[in-house]
């Protein structure tokens, strides 16, 4: 106990030292650069302020990304060039086919449901008096880590041998509903993949709701009023006025959740470890690289992930820029 405490203190002290050192360096550089006068001033400012960011980006993202592409053409110990064989393996290995199909299922189902629920709540709440309580509670899971959420849901999915009292909520509920011998949820293929998707949907719905609620608020009241004068009722108003007016935001929300879904790693790793036919691309990449030490194959999987994510992120980022430009 005492050793834990002194250990923690020394760790935190080390952190304070490191941050202090960093701040000191920044201040010294600032002081020196601030001293400079005349023509040196601007170039020195540019160098001092922009330099660190550029160096870090070069070392941390640009060079590694190129190197990963290069590694994906090499064998497992990166000694020999083997052409496209790693990519051939990614797309033809019978195990991988399951992984790719499953990732595709995730990519379609999780974003659609999360956005659907988010939209439903946003629309319903938009017409209610006490908005903030349901909104906060549904939004809360967004702040929870994937690991925390995985523990929460793994507990819901726990199954006990039939006859024993169930402590998992899901089993208890289905028994109440009349299914007397529920299966062991996380071992039932292919149901388990969908149960994992539920976790993602649970987390992302709040995000979708908040963004879509803001978009719905942005629809001018005059338009809603006019629609009502024309006799549009609840659902009709939703379908033919509200949805078309927030279409752009709706697409951004879906693509954003798609990006998160493609990279989903923590959920699969924590709940099933990728066993029982639940493996997905991102976790496969990690296991291949850091568990099996197949650097070539792992890199090829990373490149596939990059190529899959790229159009989605590019679309979103450009959309963001365009919205800024028109604002």
């Amino acid at each position: 106990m005492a050793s834990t405490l002194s250990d923690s203190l020394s760790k935190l002290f080390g952190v304070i030292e490191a941050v202090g050192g960093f701040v000191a360096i920044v201040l010294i550089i600032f002081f020196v650069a601030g001293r400079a006068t005349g023509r040196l001033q601007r170039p020195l400012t540019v160098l001092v302020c922009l330099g660190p960011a550029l160096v870090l980006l070069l070392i941390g993202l640009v060079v590694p990304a190129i190197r990963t592409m290069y590694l994906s053409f090499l064998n497992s110990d990166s000694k020999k060039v083997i052409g496209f064989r790693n990519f051939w393996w990614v797309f033809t290995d019978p195990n991988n086919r399951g992984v790719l199909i499953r990732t595709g299922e995730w990519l379609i189902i999780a974003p659609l449901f999360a956005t659907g629920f988010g939209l439903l709540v946003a629309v319903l709440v938009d017409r209610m008096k006490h908005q903030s309580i349901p909104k906060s509670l549904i939004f809360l899971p967004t702040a929870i880590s994937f690991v925390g959420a995985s523990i929460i849901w793994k507990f819901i999915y726990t199954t006990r041998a039939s006859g024993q009292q169930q402590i998992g909520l899901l089993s208890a509920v289905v028994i109440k509903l009349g299914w007397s011998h529920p299966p062991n949820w996380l071992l039932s293929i292919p149901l388990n993949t969908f149960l994992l998707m539920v976790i993602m949907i649970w987390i992302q719905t709040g995000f979708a709701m908040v963004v879509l609620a803001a978009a719905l608020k942005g629809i001018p009241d005059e338009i809603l009023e006019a629609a009502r004068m024309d006799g549009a009722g609840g659902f009709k108003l939703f379908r033919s006025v509200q949805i078309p007016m927030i279409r752009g935001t709706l697409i951004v929300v879906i693509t954003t959740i798609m990006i998160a879904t493609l990279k989903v790693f923590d959920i699969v790793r924590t709940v099933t470890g990728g066993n029982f036919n639940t493996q997905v691309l991102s976790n496969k990449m990690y296991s291949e690289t850091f568990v099996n030490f197949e650097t070539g194959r792992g890199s090829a999987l990373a490149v596939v992930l990059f190529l899959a994510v790229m159009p989605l992120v590019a679309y979103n980022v450009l959309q963001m820029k365009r919205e800024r430009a028109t604002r």
Partner: protein
Amino acid sequence: MTTTTPPIATAPVPLTGAEAARVSDVKKVRRAFSSPIASLLVVILTVLWTVPTFGLLVTSLRTKADANSNGWWTFLAHPHVTLANYNSILFSNSFGGGGGLFPYMVNSLAICIPATLIPIAIASMAAYVLAWVRFKGSDFIFFVIFALQVVPLQMSLVPLLQLYSGGAHIGSFTILPKLHIAGTYTAIWLSHTMFSLPLAVFLLHNFMSQLPSSVIEAARVDGAGPMRIFRSVVLPLATPAIASFGIFQFIWVWNDLLVALTFGGGSPKVQPLTARLSQLTGSLGSKWELLTAGGFISIVIPMIVFFALQRYFVRGLLAGSVKG
């Protein structure tokens, strides 16, 4: 999106009679579509979304015997609260040699604080130069940084780890020597900093470039150099954007598993809560009273930040949602 707009405080303007009538009319329009069924649906969804976390909290407060003999929902009939689970999951040494969660919580903090502060410092300097100390090619550099958002961090894991543990070489020529930082806090801080920069520079640049140029001109006329302007004019004005990014980055790092797992090398000296919990989920298997307590510990800090600073968090989240 409205992500980087500073919060504009609008003073409540007294309404004239006609205006008030119109406002209430408009409110009626929105209300006209509400119905008891809609409200009921919202209540059901809210309950569905809250019950999982509630079950976690309740289970973490039950005794071992209770938690293992019946469901947490029966707790409400026979409430019997204990904090013993928290005590043992935090401080006990009986979990496969790894010890309790307390040291890992310290690790999480030790990772999060620098991994939030360092990117803020580096990104705000870069964003300032790109927005206000423009030079030939500064637009191009901004575009490249902006475009780097498409590179998922998975692309960097292997090469960065090789760099940390072996240095960088072309043939036999050494560009960078061995850094000897694999499996240390430094490796994790550095990695988080690198991965956060495209988003951070983009966000802060957007905000800073919209500051009124008259303010910066005035400072320049008063004889302030570019460094001075940054420190005493731009930085204070950019606080809301920095806060949004800072909160987003803090929660992102706190919740991260992949970066810590890769660059921490699985060492208990640096592993954060998420990594340890992910491990325990396998090894503690059915000790739900402990696992739920651990889970609750890991989500309590983001939850506090969330409730206290929800508005800033939303803004950061909207802008940062493509990160990862």
